[in-house]
């Protein structure tokens, strides 16, 4: 499992993150170009707003799983923190609460992915497009679906390593990676 997680992290770091960053940089430059064209030359691409909106969002969707890996998604962490401060037994209870939260989140994401598949299929079948009609909608809905799938996969890894920690087994590489993530952000 550790090897699989290392491979997953490499996929996220070497492919997902740079792809998302390139989309953001590209869309920033496109938005900038459009501001210049509109106010200096009086010209405008009718597809620009759609491109900036949906390509930027696609980059953000791809990044959801990295936010999940870094525990960046906002939570109300009062209960686990209170428990963690009460002593070793309560600390274990706090770990269980955290694991339950991850397990529920993974299950819910799986459900959302399941509900999202017919939406993407409909977008393909009905050939729905963005407002400017320049881009097919299924590509961006697909990016959201992919983002949710990557997020769910990350949650499954977090769940596995959480259970391992509860069983007293060491997960050294995962913890080191987590600390490195925290330090980087």
């Amino acid at each position, binding site marked *: 499992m550790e090897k699989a997680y290392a491979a997953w992290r490499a996929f996220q770091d070497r492919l997902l*993150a*740079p792809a*998302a*960053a*390139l989309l*953001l*940089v590209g*869309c*920033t430059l496109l*938005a*900038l170009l*459009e*501001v210049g064209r509109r*106010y200096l030359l009086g010209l405008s691409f009718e597809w620009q*707003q759609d491109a*900036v*909106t*949906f390509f*930027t*969002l696609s*980059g*953000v969707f791809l*990044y*959801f799983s*990295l*936010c999940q890996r*870094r525990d*960046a*998604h*906002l*939570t*109300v*962490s*009062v*209960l*686990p*923190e209170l428990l963690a401060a009460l002593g070793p037994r309560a600390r274990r209870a706090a770990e269980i*609460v*955290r694991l*339950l*939260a991850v397990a*529920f*989140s993974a299950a*819910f*994401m799986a*459900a*959302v992915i399941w*509900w*999202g598949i*017919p*939406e993407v299929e409909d977008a393909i079948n009905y050939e729905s497009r963005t407002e400017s009609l320049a881009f097919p909608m299924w590509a*961006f*809905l697909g990016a*959201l*679906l992919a983002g949710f799938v990557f997020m769910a996969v990350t949650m499954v890894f977090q769940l596995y390593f959480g259970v391992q920690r509860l069983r007293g087994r060491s997960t050294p590489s995962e913890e080191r990676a987590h600390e490195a993530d925290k330090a980087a*952000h």
Partner: protein
Amino acid sequence: MLIVGAVLFVLLVLAVPIGIALSAAAAAYIMVDPLLEPTVVFRAFFSFIGRYSLMAIPLFIFAGFLMERTGLVSQLFRFADSLAGWMPGGFGVATVVACVMFGSISGSSVAMAAAMSVIAIPEMRSRGYPDWLSGGLVATAGGIAILIPPSIPLLIYGIVTETSIVDLFFAGIIPGLLLALGNITSVILIALYLELPRSSRFDARRLWRESKGALPALGMPVVILGGLYGGVFTPTEAAAAACGYALIYGFGSRRMQFVRQLLPTAMRALNLTGVIVFLIGSVGVFQFLAANMYWPQKITEVIVGWGLTPLGFIFAFMGVLLILGMFVDGIAMILLTVPVVFPVAYALKIDPVHLGIMLVLNVEMGVVTPPVGLNLFAVSGTSSIPLPQVLKGTIPFFLGDLTVLLLVIFFPALATWLPDLLVKPIF
């Protein structure tokens, strides 16, 4: 409605991410309602965030991080020191002034508190400032960034409530400056009481030298606010222009070193954007359900039926926010409360711009209230000042912030006067 509320409460207490808790609570209702298909969860999430106006958020965040990479924070700080360092508590005053200037570039409070604590706290320590004072000051002054435009919380509020973002940006200026004034007054009084040494005498030549260095950084708010005021930019275009300014300035000052940092900086911006967009999409799911069930109307009817005056409602809401701010991050605070509270406020004829500024003032105070005061952790983590010391230091400044909130509650013109004066409706 009660079932959804109960599910949401349980999931939040169990530390399920707020975005997932919101969507799941809505989904729980959708699944048992025979008229609604569960696929709307996915559709509502996508539809709510698929708007051009929302792109101002990633672009402003990216612009802030890009400017941070150029090393301008220390430049702004040196300028602020040359401007205000001669006063009693001068270095503290300079810190607040630098926070205001950096706030006009970056909309992130935590980023500013972290950056400032690296630069300002060692200097304050070397000049004999007690740790509690320097830590508390930086943690509180960091919050000014979220009122001085561009402000991410104001952008989010504007998008969710469809209030003019330009109005909100201009409305944040006076309360933001009042916060700064409150912090400056507090630091001067504390410095006089503790008899802290003054750093240097006023030096006009040094001020001139440092202002030349800081000029490129100070040009960015002129571009953003000038463009918005002149009607040249929409907020999203202003954000793109801010990125363009940061790219040109960064490339001009650091050349290839800056270019090499472009993708890592975009990744940092995406990390924050990912969290915000996920949360906004989830609010979209929740709002879809609420709108379909006419919950805003029902809640409004009940609350208006209590006979609350607008001022009574504002005080009740502000009280809830102050408590909520202890446990929930600012952006989550906005997204959890606004969909429910805004229709009621609207029915009570409370100005949406006024409400937005009061809400964000509460968010600003929430960043220093434990146990979830993000700026406390940011300052304590980067400066190694123990958390209780930082917390102690925030108390006098927090009281100043509370005074500003009360002023804005009783005198709405402090928020609404500037947008009324400067922003002319097109239609």
